């Protein structure tokens, strides 16, 4: 159990700045997901917390103690990497025993056996215990490396894209499993991923990283419904939030593309002058396709996802995504009309991309 704080962490590799003034607060027992693209600094953050890399500037606190001088062993963290890093030539059991057999922690043989068996049962790898690790499938290997992390009862779990190398089915299964494990153990988890679905479905809190800057932290619903800027708006959600340019004129939204207006009922943090250039953000599921709606569009593409259909609508020279129920019958090139849910519209400054709904 641990509370982790990063204060003004900067990390440079030569002339390249991987992290810039990062401040992060991960509460005890929280499942925190760091979301970002490749090269955003996710892994670097993780490695700094683990003690594998030293920050160029800034401090790391674990339970309020500055751990700058602590090595990876003293920090008592567990790390699960994308590339499994199982010890080759050992059986699954030997791999699971490895962290317990270190001299730093004296654990009795009976307890080792008991803990390994319990972890193996939790992860459903108990039938593989005597097998060599090179005879395992990808999913099994990743279970073993998660098992090796759990068996130790560390203070913090750090996971670096542990599910990315797995196929879709397995990824889903392990996602729920990991979340369950975290809930049962009540441990602090820091989970790094580029997959926004993983972030949304697993995280108690999400931090969105962009080029070494932490853009926004918040619960999944805060991030989803009230993104701080257009980057976050595009990073989370599949398909991502629609962004259309327009103006706010006396409380109504005027879209530049069609010069038509739609109702607006959002709350603004700052007062927005009439006629100011803004970008409207609207989630695909908040676009309403209806024959009586004000704006005309043409169906450009229909993607059937089973439970729903994702429409690509062409409106003048912009495209919008809309999700509709799978029962809706629409053909490509059909003319439709749409509106949006006025309460769900997010307004961004057109120039800076910053949300005008957040307090300035």
């Amino acid at each position, binding site marked *: 159990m641990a509370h982790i704080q990063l204060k003004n962490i900067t990390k440079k590799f030569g002339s390249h700045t991987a992290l810039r003034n990062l401040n992060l607060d991960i509460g005890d027992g929280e499942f925190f997901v760091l979301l970002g693209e490749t090269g955003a600094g996710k892994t670097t953050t993780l490695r700094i917390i*683990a003690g*594998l890399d030293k920050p160029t500037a800034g401090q790391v606190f674990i339970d309020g103690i500055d751990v700058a001088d602590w*090595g*990876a*062993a003293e920090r*008592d*963290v*567990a*790390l699960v*990497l994308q*590339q499994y*890093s199982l*010890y*080759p*030539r050992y059986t699954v059991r030997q791999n699971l025993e*490895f*962290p317990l*057999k*270190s*001299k*730093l*922690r004296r654990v009795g043989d009976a307890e080792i056996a008991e803990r390994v068996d319990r972890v193996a049962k939790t992860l459903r790898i108990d039938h593989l215990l005597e097998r060599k690790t090179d005879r395992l499938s990808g999913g099994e290997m990743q279970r073993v490396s998660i098992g*090796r992390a759990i068996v*130790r009862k560390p203070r913090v779990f750090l996971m670096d894209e542990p599910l990315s190398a797995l196929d879709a089915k397995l990824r889903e299964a392990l996602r729920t499993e990991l979340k369950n494990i975290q809930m049962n153990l009540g441990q602090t988890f820091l989970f790094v991923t580029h997959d926004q679905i993983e972030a949304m479905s697993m995280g108690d809190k999400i931090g969105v990283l962009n080029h070494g800057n932490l853009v926004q932290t918040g619960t999944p619903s805060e991030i989803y419904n009230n993104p701080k800027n257009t980057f976050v708006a595009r990073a989370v959600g599949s398909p991502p939030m629609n962004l259309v340019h327009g103006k706010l004129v006396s409380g109504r939204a005027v879209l530049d593309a069609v010069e038509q207006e739609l109702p607006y009922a959002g709350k603004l943090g700052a007062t927005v002058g009439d006629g100011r250039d803004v970008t409207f953000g609207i989630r695909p599921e908040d676009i309403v396709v209806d024959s009586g709606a004000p704006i005309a569009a043409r169906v450009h593409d229909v993607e059937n996802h089973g439970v729903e259909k994702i429409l690509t609508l062409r409106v003048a020279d912009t495209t919008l995504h809309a999700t509709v129920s799978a029962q809706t019958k629409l053909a490509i090139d059909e003319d439709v009309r749409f509106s949006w849910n006025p309460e769900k519209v997010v307004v961004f400054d057109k120039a800076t991309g910053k949300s005008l709904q957040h307090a300035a």
Partner: protein
Amino acid sequence: MGRERALATAVMTTLDPKSRAASRGMSDIAIRNLFIIPTIVFLIVFNIFPLLYSLGYSFTDFRASSPAAANFVGLQNYRELLNDPFIWTNFAITAKYVIVSVVGQVIVGFGVALLLNRDIPFKGLITTLLLLPMMLSMAVVGLFWKLLYDPSFGIINYVLGLGRFEWLSNPDVALYAVAITDIWMWSPFVMLLSLAGLSAVPKHLYEAAAIDRAGTLYTFFRITLPLVAPILMIAIIFRTMEAFKTFDLAYIMTSQPTTEVISIRLYKMAFQEWQTGRSCALAYIVLIMVLAITNIYVKYLNKVKER
């Protein structure tokens, strides 16, 4: 119409493999033979033929120094050699030499490889310099180590402050002195192979071990060693074979009876005592021993690889 046909014929000619080879003057098979045949001829004339011919001699009392014809004596040479206690002394000396020099080379070579496997400045330059001894000729190494060991002006006694300590003329020390030279010369070989093995160990395994709170020694024995073991075994096989048939160093540096390894005995038997038939038999005994030892190693190597 006529032009089109001519074009078609031209295309066909270039596409046809037979005519293409013919235009080059030689088929692929002919070129292959041209490269392989000289090597095969060379091997047969200088290796296979003498090998089989000496096998024949080993069953005779032939002496290359006398005009007398060779008489077939059956297994007499082998019987006598295997019952000769002096020969067994030579084998014992050889075994001692092999163990000392191979163990020394593995410790020094692997140790230096471990040091070089870190991030140190001028790593490439240091590695290259360390490889130099291996590239020298055995005879040259033997001659200048003889000077280094010299009791009156040698630098080794001077540096170690041993006064006039006798290295090469002291029967108790001479073999070890030769082994030390061999260690100096061939540790780089073990180092080179170990370095290749060490750099192939994925870095994330060490990170995982650090996270798992494994100590340095524990990490070394549980991760480094098992992963480097196969390539280290190959180095050991090579060095054992070489040390077993070592001749030049020991022959050049000293002439003590305690340094008479089996190949020196063989040389003396063949070219000083002119017992050609008998020495051929001894050579075959040595060959069989080397093959046996190598086989044991290879079996073990496969086991190490499986683990």
